């Protein structure tokens, strides 16, 4: 069996989850619980941050970390949801329609904005000056700024992809290519998160990150294979917009 067939077989095995919708649901529940539980395990009782004296901006920092962890999980769910297309989602029993894709994307953008906003605000409060350096890309100012820059580029790519999705009525076909920016955005967000996140490499989160990235890669491969083999399945001509109902462009 070739490597390609192995990948294909693994993806097919994954799609057999259709027979176990409860497994998919519990997988999603676990994915949504792990960031919160991990954050609680390192942060402890958040009320203590108000009950006792803490350095200025610390609450914003820990809240920013929570927003970041959930931004990653929601981004991952959104990516998988979009890539699977209508047929894939139906097989897995998670089809909620295009409006769900839009809502999930909006939630993800809100969480990214919350993460960045709270971090910059916290740093500004702490240093008594606007921490604009965390909004300015720089690959030559040391490890910390370099990894933050990866996050900035990922956020810009997300905005770019969202813009193309929002403007799909203007560019009937071209918008799909712009929307594919979510894939490099997800890759950069993963690297940003793994290299600088305090919780991202704590044991249960490591499993979530590794599993999430592997599943995302498998679904991307499946999607690309589907596109290159017209007629071999019902999902062949799908693009990230394939979740749209046929009348969505009208």
């Amino acid at each position: 069996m070739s490597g390609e067939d192995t990948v294909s077989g693994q993806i097919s095995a994954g799609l057999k989850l259709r027979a176990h919708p409860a497994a998919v649901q519990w997988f999603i529940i676990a994915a949504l619980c792990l960031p919160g539980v991990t954050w609680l395990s390192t942060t402890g009782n958040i009320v203590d941050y108000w009950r006792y004296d803490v350095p200025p901006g610390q609450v914003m920092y820990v809240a920013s970390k929570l927003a970041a962890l959930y931004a990653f999980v929601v981004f991952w769910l959104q990516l998988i949801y979009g890539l699977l297309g209508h047929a894939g989602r139906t097989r897995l029993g998670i089809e909620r329609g295009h409006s769900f894709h839009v809502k999930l994307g909006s939630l993800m953008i809100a969480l990214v904005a919350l993460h960045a906003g709270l971090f910059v605000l916290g740093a500004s409060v702490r240093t008594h000056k606007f921490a604009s350096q965390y909004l300015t890309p720089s690959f030559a100012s040391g490890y910390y700024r370099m990894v933050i820059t990866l996050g900035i580029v990922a956020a810009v790519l997300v905005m770019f992809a969202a813009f193309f999705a929002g403007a799909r009525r203007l560019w009937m076909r071209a918008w799909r290519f712009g929307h594919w920016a979510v894939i490099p955005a997800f890759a950069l967000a993963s690297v940003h998160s793994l290299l600088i996140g305090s919780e991202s490499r704590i044991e249960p989160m490591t499993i979530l990150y590794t599993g999430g990235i592997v599943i995302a890669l498998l679904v991307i491969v499946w999607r690309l294979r589907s596109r290159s083999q017209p007629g071999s399945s019902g999902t062949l001509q799908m693009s990230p917009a394939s979740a749209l109902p046929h009348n969505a462009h009208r």
Partner: protein
Amino acid sequence: MIRTLSIVAAILAVAYAIQVYRGAHAPFASPSHDRLVPVASTAEVLNLIKQGKKVVFVDAREKQEWQEEHIPGAINVSLREVRQLDQRTLGDPDLVIAYCLKDFRGFEVAKALRQSGVNKALILAELGINGWKRQGLPTVVEGKRSEVEALAMLDECAHQKAKCQVKTP
């Protein structure tokens, strides 16, 4: 969808309750002087160094950041490594100072160290390596200043504060 989110909310509520219970019953150092993590000024730290006390600096950043620059003698322990930390590596310190750039991460590591039983863990009043440098204190800089050189400079600062820009508390 509502059922899924309800289950998630219930699990998170239980996890939070466990954290509150642990916080209330753990045998770790309790917050003192209304501070969740106590602070020490650089001048106080230098006085301890001058008296020959053992001050351990814990760099809470990533290893690459520590390699680029750190406070002389600092060991690198990130938040995720605190639980696995063998406290014998700290020796028998008189003071443990956790720090990062501006002490977002330093604060969390100091808090985690105190919860692990390192009662002498605290942060700098000047907040992080940035605050340390603003006081004119030396750091080890990759390719520019070695550990030995920086330690000698720190010792000099501790004994002759006028040589550095350390403000008195």
